[in-house]
Every structure is written in C-alpha cells, then in structure tokens.
C-alpha cells in the first residue's frame, strides 16, 4: 500500500531524529540490558546526563510549585520526570540484579569487571565478600578440608566450577534498524542468516554480541 510506505519513511526519519535524544538512548539501553543474558557495558555518559536532566527538572518542578504555576502543567512535568526516573532506576536495578547473580564470575573476569561503573564495582566487591562469608560460615568450614573453597567443588577441580556464569547461548529476540545482509551464525556450520530491517529474529545471544555492542542490533 502506498500510504503505508509513505508513513513508514516519515516514521523512519522521525525515528532517526528521536533516537539521538537521551530519553530514547536511555530507553534503548534499558531494553538491551533487560533482555541480555549478561551484563552490558555501563553507559556512564548517558547516566550522567540523564541524572543532570532529572535534577534540573526536579528543580524546575519545585520552582513551579512555588510560583503557583497551573497544577496541570506541574503534574504533567512530574509525570515525565517519573517516567524518566523509572527508566534510569530500572536500568540500574537490572544491572544490580545481574551483578548479584554472577558476582564471582564478574569478579574474576577482567573484561566483564570493566563493564561496571565505579559504584557498581564497590557494590560487587561487598556483595562477593558477603556471600563468601555467608557460605563459609554456614557450610564450607564444616566440610572436609578439600571442599572448603566457595569457587571450586573440591581442591581437585581444575576450574572454578562452582561459579555460575551467564549463559551466552541463550536465545534473544532482536531487531535491526537496517539491513545487515548475510550474517554468519557462530557455529560456522550453518548457512548465514539474512537480517532484514525491522524484522524480529530469535538468535543466540553470543552470535550477535558484537552487533549489540556496536548498537547495530537492539534486543526486544
């Protein structure tokens, strides 16, 4: 239908315009973080800017309250503020949940550790310490010598096999803004997948990991 094509190109332009605003970026970061099985890189700039904007807005709303601006306007600004705060908080919360889940893995993998913000690293350290302490106190010290590590099943294990790792094989539903052409899935034995714009695909996360990092694909 012609009208549909016209609409979608106007929507596309609008999309590309919108996608540069912080609100849109925050939304996308939140979506990706929620859908990804592992913790993604902390977008420090975005969080910083969002916090500044939120603070400015809060001050503005206070001003409005004092100056007796129309309560409707005030409540609308407050709603927008609440929405943005929810996004930011949920983003940080999701990350904290992932940190708690995989804290030992994160601690020992430098590459993942670097994806955390300074405060998150502090949190992770404390969290790891607490869990370790708890495990040792409640169980590990009561086991025979060889089994007292919280990272390994026994002293005879070669790896840290008691450490849960995020499942990178997990499938995710994703969408690309542009046509990405033939894309080779990770295992190499399969034919490449044709990724079109704006279609949803269910793919293993680790195959599209680099695309997510370079922001070419969004998780839905």
């Amino acid at each position: 239908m012609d009208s549909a094509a016209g609409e979608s190109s106007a929507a596309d332009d609008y999309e590309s315009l919108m996608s540069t605003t912080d609100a849109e970026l925050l939304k996308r970061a939140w979506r990706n973080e929620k859908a990804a099985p592992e913790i993604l890189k902390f977008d420090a700039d975005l969080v910083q800017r969002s916090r500044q904007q939120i603070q400015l807005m809060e001050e503005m709303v206070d001003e409005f309250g004092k100056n007796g601006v129309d309560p409707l306007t005030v409540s609308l600004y407050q709603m927008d503020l609440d929405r943005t705060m929810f996004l930011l908080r949920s983003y940080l919360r999701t990350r904290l949940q992932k940190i708690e889940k995989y804290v030992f893995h994160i601690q020992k993998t430098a590459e993942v550790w670097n994806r955390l913000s300074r405060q998150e690293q502090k949190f992770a350290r404390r969290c790891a310490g607490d869990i370790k302490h708890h495990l040792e106190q409640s169980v590990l010290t009561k086991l025979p010598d060889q089994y007292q590590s919280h990272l390994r099943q026994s002293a005879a294990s070669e790896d840290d096999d008691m450490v849960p790792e995020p499942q990178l094989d997990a499938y995710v539903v994703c969408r690309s803004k542009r046509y990405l052409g033939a894309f080779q899935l990770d295992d190499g034995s399969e034919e490449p997948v044709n990724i079109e714009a704006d279609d949803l695909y269910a793919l293993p996360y680790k195959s599209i990991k680099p695309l997510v990092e370079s922001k070419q694909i969004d998780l839905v």
Partner: protein
Amino acid sequence: MAAASEPHASAFSAAELEFLAEDEMVEIVPNLRMDPLNFISGDFGPFRPQIATQVPLWLAVALKKRGKCTIRAPEWMSVDKLAQVLESERDSEKFQPLPFHYVEISRLLFDHAREDIPDIYMVRSLIEDIKDVRFHKIGTGLEIISKERTYALRLKNLSAMEANIVRPFITRALETFYKLSSSEMIQDSDHMPNRQAQATNRGPRRQLKDR
C-alpha cells in the same frame, strides 16, 4: 554443571511493555490553551483549542483523564482497515503488518478514550479476532519447527506483546535444539553425506513465518 542459571523467563512484564508503548505518538485535539512543554522526553505543544497536535500516548491519556482533550483514533484503528487486516490475516500464512504496539495502544485507548473511537465495539471485536488469528498462527507455526537444525527464527511482523508472550517458549526450545544438535554434531562424524543431503533439502535457514 553448576552453571545451570536459567535465563529470565519473560524479559518484560506486561506493564513494562505498556510503558514502552506509551511513548508512541498519537494525535489529540486539545480544548485548552497551554504553552509548549519541554520534557526530558521531548518538546510538545503549544496547545491551542481545536488545533490538532501530536503527543506521546501517556501525555494524551493524562490530558484526556482531566478532560482537556479528545484523542483521535490512529489511522489503522478504523473498522475498514481492521476488517481488511483481519481478512488478509485469515487468508495468508504470513503476519500482516501492524503497528508494533497495536495491542497496548488499543488497550489504552479503549480504557481511556472510549468516546473518541468511532464504532468502538466493532473495532474492539475486530482487534480481538486479529489477535486470536495471529496467536493461532504462532501456535501452528511453532508446531512445525523442524526438530533438527533450527538455529534462528525470523518473526516478521510480530508485535511487541506477541513476541513477549512467546519469547520464553521460543528461547527455551531453540536453546534445547542448540544443545542437542551440537552434541549430535560431535558424535556424528561419519554421517557426513547424510547431513549434507538434509541441509540441501531444508533450503536456506528456516524462515518460519515467511513462505
């Protein structure tokens, strides 16, 4: 294996999907005069009586609740368009293009802007029918996924709510295939000719919803 951590069941709750949908733009006709609003999420307005303007859905609903505007039903929400979509949905095996958040948008409008939608009962029942047909298609489509070698699925024109609902099933199913087939491949080194024949039979990777 100690690392049997289970991936999130449904990554987004229905409320969160609605939250995402609330940023979609809709047209309203305000009945008040208001200066432009400079939100974090964008700048909207100015608002003048009887002059239509585009705002995000959450703002439209907020204004509507306070009786400050009427909402214009989006173009795709007319009885004619929807009847057309329903018919093509029934006739074809593919999914018809619909706005990504059509479920959430229609829900919000039904709840808050009842009088602004012409023929609302018709529209509502059409949308319900469309939803049912699509879900049924998803079900039959999933039944025929080949048990071997499905590495990726293409879900063309699926909407947000639908994708969220099938996500747990699809991800677990595909993961299981993946695990099973990779262990198969390790053992199966003398069945080479057999495998190749299968690969050509199947054609390029599974295009589930696209025939």
